[in-house]
Every structure is written in structure tokens, then in C-alpha cells.
């Protein structure tokens, strides 16, 4: 069954417009729409694409939408899907940003945001805490502490630290393989 471009666009638009909480919150909705409801993709295929999108840089929801779009309707499909998923947030934020700058001087708005800023710190901390729990092994803790020190203390640029840590992970894995190979 071939999906029409209009339907592809509106499927992604709908998910982009009504999913709160970022890209990961969209994954179950993509699944419901494209796997369960219409059967454009099977379950295995869906999770394959998800794993691939998670291992590439960028916005996961966009990566995912473009990949699915390309798969279902080629390059035009990829464009239409990416546009559909991004358009609602783009428009909503434009309206809010314009509105916010008109009211940010208001003392009540400022007081509310003083509380909100603390909850944002807690949100980011919680995200770090959850990710930490998945990397509690010795090497993981070492890498996390090293990265923290390089970025927060030595003040290296995160861009280069990310590249360096990726390279470091690759090298240590390879060295580990060679050592294991040699000991057999």
C-alpha cells in the first residue's frame, strides 16, 4: 500500500502538533500511526530505523520522520515528513517568543520564571541522572567524570570533547579486542 504525500504530511504534522515532551515522546505515536494503524512498516523495520536514528547526530524526531518519509515516498517523502513534524513547533514557538518578550518585564512573570528556572535545572539534572544509571560501570563513570572535568573545569569546547570521547571509545574498544584476541 502506497501512502499519499498529503497523508504523509498530515500524519507527521499531527504528531508534531500534539506531542509534548520532545522527540522520545513521539516514538510511540509514530509506531501507532505507521505500524499498528496502517501497516506501512513492520515492527522489526520500525525498531531498526529507530536504532539507526539514535546513532546519528541531530534531532531524533526529525531524523526518524525523514527516514520513514524517504522509505515510503523517496526524497520528496523525506522532505514532506520532516517539514510536517517540524512545522507545528516552529510556528508555536514563533508566537510564544513574540509574546514572551512583551511580558518578560512583568514582575509576576519574572517571579514565576524564577521558580521555573529551578525546575529546569532539576529537569536537566534528572536527565543526566537517568543516563548515568545506564552507564554505572567503571569505564562509564570514568568517562563521565573525565568529560565533566574537561568541559566544566578545563573549559574545553563540548564540540571537540564529544568528538574526542567518540574517538576514545572507538580506540579503547579496538585495543580491548586486540588484547582479548592475543590472550586466546
Amino acid at each position, binding site marked *: 500500500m502506497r501512502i499519499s504525500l498529503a497523508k504523509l504530511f498530515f500524519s507527521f504534522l499531527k504528531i508534531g*502538533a500534539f*506531542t*509534548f*515532551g*520532545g*522527540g*522520545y515522546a513521539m516514538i510511540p505515536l509514530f509506531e501507532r500511526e505507521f505500524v499498528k494503524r496502517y501497516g506501512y512498516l513492520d515492527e522489526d523495520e520500525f525498531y531498526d530505523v529507530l536504532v*539507526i536514528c*539514535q*546513532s*546519528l*547526530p*541531530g*534531532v*531524533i524526531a*526529525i*531524523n526518524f520522520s525523514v527516514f520513514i518519509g524517504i522509505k515510503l515516498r523517496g526524497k520528496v517523502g*523525506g522532505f514532506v515528513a520532516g517539514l510536517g*513534524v*517540524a512545522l507545528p*513547533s*516552529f510556528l*508555536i*514557538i514563533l508566537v*510564544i517568543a513574540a509574546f*514572551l518578550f512583551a511580558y518578560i518585564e512583568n*514582575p509576576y512573570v519574572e517571579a*514565576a*520564571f*524564577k521558580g*521555573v*528556572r*529551578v*525546575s*529546569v*535545572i*532539576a*529537569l*536537566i539534572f534528572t*536527565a*543526566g*541522572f537517568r*543516563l548515568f544509571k*545506564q*552507564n554505572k560501570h567503571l*569505564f562509564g563513570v570514568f*568517562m*563521565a*567524570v573525565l*568529560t565533566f572535568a574537561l*568541559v*566544566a573545569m578545563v573549559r574545553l569546547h*563540548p564540540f571537540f570533547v*564529544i*568528538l574526542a570521547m*567518540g*574517538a576514545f*571509545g572507538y580506540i*579503547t*574498544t579496538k585495543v580491548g579486542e586486540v588484547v582479548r584476541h592475543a590472550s586466546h
Partner: protein
Amino acid sequence: MLLIKLFFTFLGIGAVAFGGGYAMLPLFERMIVEQHGWLDRSLFLDMIAISQMTPGPIAINSATFIGFQIQGVIGALVATIGMITIPVILISLVSVYREPFKNSKVVQAIFTGLRPALVGLIFASVFSLARDAVFDLWGLILFFVFFGLLAVFRIHPILVILISAVLGLIIYA
């Protein structure tokens, strides 16, 4: 000139933004707040709250917000497009050459380093941002309350942000 700078800044963020959402905030913070001074820390935190409370991917919301703040609607467009350019090129390539990528040992090896590094990065941005958010005893108490609500009681982030706005009004207004 500013638009070109905006485009390449977001191109750079998009190129190494592994892990999605909160994992890319450290990059945003260093490049947008510290390097270019396009947003101060308080507004940066406000932006994250707004991104969380509105539908859509947090990174797209952030790029739109920052771009708009710098150069209006055209700035918003340039930042958002810059952010997704490299990832979309990569996705297009991988959608064609999929099999060699899918089970790639190289990718897996790189991620053994990247995944824990993201933990360190996220805590580094907490460390840097907290100075402008948690500045009194109330802030410290609220931080632990919100962390408890999120991590222990698993209250939805949007609800926690709403609670924090009400508490902010009560305490600081």
C-alpha cells in the same frame, strides 16, 4: 553576516548533537550563551521550560526560539535549517547504505565512549546553569523537591514546571 554566523553555529550543533534533547543543551549553552552571548543564562533556562511545555522536539523549539531572538522570523528559519542540515544529509545516506551501518562495529565502539560522555556533558551544563537559577536557600530546597518529584515520584515534567511557576509566584512575587 549575523545570519551566516547563526547558520554555521547551528550547523555545528547539529553535527555533533548525539543523544537528542537534553544531551545537546551543553552545546547550546556553550555556543549560544557563552561564545556568542545571544541569550543570557536566565532566558536560556526560560527557553528550555517553554520548549518542554510546547509540543514538538526540544531542539527544534530551541533553535526556533534562539533564531527568532536574534533575527526575527528569518533568524528562526535559518537556525532551524542549520540545525537539521547535516543530520538530514546523513539520514539520506544511511537510508540508502543501510546494512553496512546498521550492525557496524565502528558505530557501536564509538558509542561506548559517547554514551557516558553525554552524562558528563549534561552535568557540566547543570553546573554552569545552576548559578543563575539556584541563588538562595529557597532555590536549593526547591531543586531537591523538583528532583524528587521527577526522579522518585515520576511526575510529568510539564506538571512539575507548572508547580514551579506557582511556587515562584508565591515565594518571589
